[in-house]
């Protein structure tokens, strides 16, 4: 019974924190977006040079710190890895191509819907379709095999890297790239963003909040617990936006969004498929990465690399729409992801071979 109340409350809390971050300066409907924020960080450290999207997002650092500190405190921290790390890198990379065609991760998709952006509703249908595809493979036996214990240093690398990034942001910002216009120039104060991230990190460890698990577990196990958080997030977001004047129903002129329905659908379809194959959405990957999973650290690196390539090769969409390179990139990424899924579901099993 507690679970039935807890998860919607958590979803509502995430909506409140997200709206607060927008009020404090984040771009509209982008209180949180793991994909966008990793992309901004990639830009800030010079991995791409798309001028409007460069900033060290303290929210990401906060999430990693929150997950790291809290998982250590409650003894859930465990340095583990070795479950097809390179494949996970590729899946993270492909996920980011999809997310930057749509312009958001599953969390931002929910926040966009809460802001009245109907393009994100189209994205939601694509997301669900991608999850259904992933569930098909899971039901047929898809697995990336086991993780094993690894050296503790593996689990400390990402939190240490996040600490160095925060140190650069606070004390040596001149070595970083910062947007002077566009979404990257819009941000909440560093301390507020960091605290919001910390709270999300702790929430992530306690509740295992995952934005792909909502739909996935409803289908697989008739378990609607995560789904209730997802729905509450959208509902509270709509109410909050209505109260504060941030709700604008329609397809046109939505903030950091485009109106190409087909590609909103396909972009999120790729995100949904990759997220199921990875075992969690981008937010969940960050939480696991902070809790010692070196496989998830590699996935996060894959997402950062994917973001850099998406902008360097002009595959990322903008308010102007989807690019030709984005469509080609999608096709290549989608084929690779399906091949990974097919191979790890049907081909690898010899007679008698277990996981």
């Amino acid at each position, binding site marked *: 019974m507690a679970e039935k109340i807890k998860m919607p409350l958590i979803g509502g809390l995430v909506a409140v924190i997200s709206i607060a971050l927008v009020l404090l300066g984040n771009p509209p409907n982008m209180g949180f977006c793991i994909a966008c924020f990793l992309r901004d960080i990639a830009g800030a450290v010079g991995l791409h040079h798309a001028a409007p999207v460069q900033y060290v997002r303290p929210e990401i650092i906060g999430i990693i710190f929150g997950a790291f500190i809290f998982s250590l405190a409650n003894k859930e921290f*465990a340095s*583990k890895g070795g479950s097809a790390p390179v494949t996970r890198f590729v899946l993270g990379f492909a996920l980011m191509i999809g997310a930057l065609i749509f312009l958001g991760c599953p969390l931002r998709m929910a926040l966009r819907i809460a802001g009245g952006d109907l393009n994100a509703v189209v994205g939601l249908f694509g997301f669900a379709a991608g999850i259904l595809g992933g569930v098909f493979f899971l039901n047929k036996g898809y697995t990336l095999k086991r993780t*094993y214990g690894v050296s503790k240093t593996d689990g400390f690398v990402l939190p240490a890297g996040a600490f160095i990034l925060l140190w650069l942001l606070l004390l040596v910002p001149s070595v970083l790239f910062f947007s002077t216009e566009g979404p990257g120039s819009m941000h909440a104060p560093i301390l507020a963003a960091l605290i919001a991230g910390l709270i999300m990190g702790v929430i992530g460890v306690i509740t295992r909040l995952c934005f792909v698990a909502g739909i996935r*577990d409803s289908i697989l196990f008739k*378990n609607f617990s995560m789904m209730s958080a997802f729905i509450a997030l959208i509902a509270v977001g709509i109410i909050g936006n209505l109260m504060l004047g941030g709700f604008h129903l329609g397809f046109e002129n939505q903030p950091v969004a485009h109106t190409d329905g087909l590609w909103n659908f396909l972009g999120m379809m790729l995100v949904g498929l990759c997220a199921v194959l990875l*075992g969690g959405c981008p937010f969940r990957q960050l939480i696991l990465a902070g809790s010692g999973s070196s496989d998830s650290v590699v996935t996060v690196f894959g997402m950062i690399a994917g973001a850099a390539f998406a902008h360097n090769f002009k595959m990322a969409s903008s308010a102007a729409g989807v690019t030709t390179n984005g469509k080609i990139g999608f096709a290549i990424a989608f084929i690779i992801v399906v091949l990974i899924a097919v191979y790890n579901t049907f081909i690898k099993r010899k007679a008698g071979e277990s*996981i």
Partner: protein
Amino acid sequence: MKTIDACGVSCPEPLLMLQNALKTEKEILLLTDSKNALDNCEKYAKKKGLSVNTTTDADKYKMHISVAK
């Protein structure tokens, strides 16, 4: 009794392994090293009205699940 070794496999595979095994087995020993997987499997089994008994051995959880109460 069937033994499922779910150590180290990603979410939601441990629960899927349990769900599939329950189609044919009446008694299952599930091994996992993940608190997350343990919680999910325990919740699922209890919701199904199964008898669940979990012990901890070093870093591993041993979950004994049976259909008979």
